[in-house]
């Protein structure tokens, strides 16, 4: 399976720097997926969930509040302002990550609809892990 390098950077550090098979991004004009060999593009991301499909087929969800994605052949760099990855070894860690993610989304004064849809996605991502 073709893979590409994915970097997700926040002002507080790198939260993802590894190979990935695919990534789904919450673009300004709608969600879009990126696979290896995607044509180059630069676009703004809005608040939402970034789904990263890793090499071992597992999917990791990362909640972001704003971002810029730069897609190059073989490499994707995402600059985000705030991010909360939903990951953890056990239930309590996942619950904590979930809280962080919800807080991040609620902090941005956006329409209730967007929050609701993102929250639903976060919940389902957490369900997958448990």
């Amino acid at each position, binding site marked *: 399976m073709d893979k590409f390098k994915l970097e997700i950077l926040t*002002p507080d550090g790198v939260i993802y720097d590894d190979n990935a098979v695919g990534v789904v991004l919450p673009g300004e004009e709608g969600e879009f997926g990126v696979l290896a060999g995607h044509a180059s593009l630069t676009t703004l991301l809005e608040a939402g969930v970034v789904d990263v499909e890793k090499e071992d087929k597992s999917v990791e969800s990362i909640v972001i509040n704003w971002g810029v994605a730069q897609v190059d052949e073989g490499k994707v760099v995402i600059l985000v302002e705030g991010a909360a990855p939903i990951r953890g070894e056990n239930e309590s860690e996942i619950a904590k990550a979930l809280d962080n993610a919800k807080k991040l989304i609620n902090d941005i004064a956006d329409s209730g609809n967007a929050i609701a849809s993102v929250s639903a996605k976060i919940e389902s991502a957490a369900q997958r892990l448990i």
Partner: protein
Amino acid sequence: MANLKDIQRQIKSVSNTQKTTRAMKLVSTAKLRRAEELAKRSRLYAQKMNQVIAEIAGRIECSKVGGLENRCFHQIENPKIVDIVFVTADKGLCGGFNIQTIKAVNKLLKEYKAKDVKVRLRGIGKKGVEFYKYNEVEMYNAVIDLSSKPDKTRSDEFIQTSIEDYLDEKIDGLHIVYNGYKNMITQELHVDKVLPVDTDSFDCTKVQSQSMLEIEAEDEEKVLDSLVKKYVSYNMYYSLIDSVAAEHSARMQAMDTATNNAKEMVKSLNVQFNKARQAAITTELIEIISGVESMK
């Protein structure tokens, strides 16, 4: 000669001071490690951010007649009013750390005064704010508890005013002055011109070779508008975390010197104490001997 008791008291007081300064040094060392780590992680983001901005802005600048529309990229020839944001520490006892920043701000103020440009001074950090209050220099606004605990949300709020005023053409420039971290023993003073963004560094030849990016021109401007705001507020945040790291390294050094000085002082006081004690013993002996002599 000084009284024995006096010297003893002095020795005790100096060694107590030494204990305090040593503890402060240890605290600063621990805090520095954390602050340094944060600054290091953040630097990566800064590099990518600069890269993306330079790439997009460079492409528009080079391909479009008239250059960029966003005011953040216009080089303003004759600024009328500029913002100067300075970052100092909230606490002292860190050597020349704060005064260096203040001196740099004063120099900048003088330069602008000579050019007849109005300056809005915006301060972060108790030490700098107190200095200008004491000297009765007018400040536009001041925040005093942000520099010791950098917080992205509060830093964004703070700088937002300047960004909006710049876009509304109320101000024509923005400088951030702070003392940044270079390594464990040196700090580096930064006088950064944040707005307008320096476009000289954009290289047209390099940009054109990468012109395969697939975005519409209008989109590019939109991305850039959004990006440049984040760029400025991120710069503000980075100044804060860099300044914290520098503050701790400066304090660590100052406290190390203080501890060494105290050590020296205890040493010389000990010599003094021993001399005084010996003198007292000698006097007593002479008294006894002369007493015995007189009884013969």
